């Protein structure tokens, strides 16, 4: 006998939404740390370092996230590290986010007008000082709107963790759908939850972009 799709199920899905947002936050933080390294490597004057970062971005962006997740999921045990699947998946999402954030931030660093760098040089600032005090503060302003936009992508993409059994929003929806046999209602509810989280962020990203342009 199937259960009725009820408020209890919706509450269960809300806990899943909590995990979705949590996973996306972890990926954003982990991805930001690794992504800044990738972005800095990418703008390095050393061609080997720059190429290395470029290769990393190419491979991660050229692999479907689902396959990346499978590799992380099985790879942890393969390397002999016994961790909870959620940890392996969180690490995989961080690596994934690093490739995209690294690329976005590289673009931001490079779009700071050249005169700024030359001005800093003329004032006698070294390479590191120029980067830290002149380039990065201006690049951050340029980088914020696309970073928020990518965070929306991250929230949506955590749904793929459901395939490897992480109980986030999409997985809770699958469980509820199997118990109630009301796939249309259940997945519409899940979609509505995602929309309610993502759409405001999309609007914020768009608003920031407009403000930057004016």
């Amino acid at each position, binding site marked *: 006998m199937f259960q009725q799709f009820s408020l209890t199920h919706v509450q269960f899905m809300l806990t899943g939404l909590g995990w979705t947002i949590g996973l996306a936050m972890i990926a954003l933080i982990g991805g930001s740390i690794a992504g800044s390294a990738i972005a800095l490597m990418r703008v390095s004057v050393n061609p080997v370092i720059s190429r290395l970062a470029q290769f990393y971005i*190419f*491979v991660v*962006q*050229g*692999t*479907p*996230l*689902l*396959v*990346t997740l*499978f*590799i992380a999921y*099985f*790879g942890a045990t*393969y*390397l*002999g590290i016994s961790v909870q699947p959620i940890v392996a998946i969180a690490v995989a999402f961080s690596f994934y986010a690093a490739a995209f954030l690294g690329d976005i931030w590289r673009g931001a660093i490079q779009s700071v007008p050249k005169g700024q760098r030359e001005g800093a040089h003329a004032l006698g600032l070294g390479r590191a000082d120029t980067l830290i005090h002149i380039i990065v503060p201006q690049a951050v302003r340029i980088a914020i709107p696309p970073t928020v936009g990518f965070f*929306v992508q991250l929230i*949506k*993409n955590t*749904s*793929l963790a*459901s*395939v490897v059994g992480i109980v986030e929003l*999409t997985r809770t*929806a*699958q469980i509820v*759908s199997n118990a109630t046999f009301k*796939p*249309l209602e259940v*997945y*519409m509810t*899940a*979609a509505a939850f*995602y*929309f309610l989280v*993502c*759409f405001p962020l*999309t609007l914020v990203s768009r608003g920031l972009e407009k403000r930057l342009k004016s």
Partner: protein
Amino acid sequence: MGYLDFTGVLSRSDLLLKGMLLTAQISVVSMVFALMIAVLVASICLSSSRLVRLPALAYVEAIRNTPFIVQVFLIYFGLPSFGIRLDPIIAAILAMSIYGGAYCSEVIRAGIQSITKGQIEAGRALGMSPLTIFRYVILKPALAAVFPSLAAQFILLLLSSSVVSAISVPELTGIGNDIQGITLRNMEIYLVIAAVYVILVALLKGSMTVLERVLFPFKFLGR
């Protein structure tokens, strides 16, 4: 640390090839449909009437702010509630076209907006019909202008095709799951699959560059 043994995986390269072909097929078919949806939706989004614009904008925002896998599940598991039962491959192509259409429509809209008014007025002055103007004065230069962004969307669409393995479509990732079930060599299979996707993406990138030169030779004049 275990050792890697690729023999089990590589002896099933015929299966992998089949999966790769299906991935390529559903991706290319979806790209064509997505482009058609995108041109239609982009033109509707630029209509002067708010009432006409609203459904198109709602479609774009709804698709862009919900996960692709949920859209796939809605089409494959949700549509039977309306008595529509689809074959997994058809459901996959439908989902990918709708998904890709929303993203591409934003790109094409930007392209159409980049056409200056003077161009359209010049077309009118030359006595072109509205359809001719749309086709040759608006659409073609617009597509030429945004072609690189469109190519990037197509690559994302190719990668998103792996998600339809969740509704048992035997494309590359789905085949990978099958081989994993037989050989239990999970690490090897997914490494091979990842490499195949990287190659497919590189191939698509290359063909898009060639296609750009063939379709829009005027972009490369005088270079």
